[in-house]
């Protein structure tokens, strides 16, 4: 029954106590070639620009780049970990503004953070804006999620 108890401790965050301006815990995700190959297999997006350096450079990219959908998928974990239930996400959208370039030697670090920008008391929902940066670049634009709180 430890699993059930574990699930219960991760109950969905209550609307009470959530306010506009609240910052969500930030996180940094390290991206390397192995991670991109893993995402390529999991997502079935096997475009070689995400894992074949020679191909990526041939089509004019500086190096292999991360899947935009990988970055989008990693970014929402900031929200789902805060809200306590991945099923609470009602809407999630973003623009892909800059690629995450992933050099072989160093990989890349992507920093994610989130801020509550709106709350709906009647529906008990909150809007969270997410920022995703890699070095000086904002890699996602207008990334935002609407979550259903308890």
């Amino acid at each position, binding site marked *: 029954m430890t*699993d*059930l108890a*574990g*699930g*219960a401790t*991760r109950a*969905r965050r209550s609307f009470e106590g959530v306010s506009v301006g609240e910052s969500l815990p930030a996180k940094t*995700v390290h991206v390397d070639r192995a*991670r991109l190959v*893993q*995402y390529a*297999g*999991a*997502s*079935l*997006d096997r475009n070689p620009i995400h894992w074949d350096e020679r191909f990526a450079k041939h*089509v004019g990219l500086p190096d292999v780049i991360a899947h*935009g*959908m*990988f970055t*989008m*998928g*990693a970014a*929402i*974990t900031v929200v*789902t*970990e805060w809200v306590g*239930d*991945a*099923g609470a*996400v*009602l*809407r*999630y*959208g*973003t*623009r*892909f503004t800059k690629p995450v370039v992933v050099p072989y030697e160093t990989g890349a670090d992507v920093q994610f953070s989130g801020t509550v920008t709106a709350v709906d008391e009647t529906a008990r929902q909150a809007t969270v804006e997410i920022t995703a940066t890699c070095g000086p670049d904002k890699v996602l634009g207008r990334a935002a*999620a609407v979550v259903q709180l308890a």
Partner: protein
Amino acid sequence: MPVNPEFAGRVYPPSAPYGVSAAKIKEFAEAVGATDPAHTDRAAAQARGYRDVIAPPTFAVLVAQRAEMEFIFDPEAGVDFSRVVHGEETFIHHRPMTAGDEIVGVLTVDSVKAAGGHTMIVTRTELSAGEEPVCTALSTIVVRGGE
């Protein structure tokens, strides 16, 4: 060949059903670093009222892209896939996608617009399980113009 503007408004026939499995959900969750036990632990998911393990919010792309490919590789559409860049993506979840779902996608080409030598295309894929709506996926792709 440029993108055919007459494709705006076109609706494609429903895609072949995609069976959502617990194994694929686990694989996808691990790949994006999603640690919610509801992705991997059936008992934990059921304790929250879900029928089975649920997919991470962006898992829907895997199913939606199957429908989008019908349009992208439609020879009449004139989309040069080697010039396609993903511009935007939005998911509207009607309920979490769940292991055991048989998902069918219906793709509509919402708009085809030329902008500064590029073409911006917005597609909308309605994903459903039987009669039940599960997710609406909106995707903007940019087809870069020739140099």
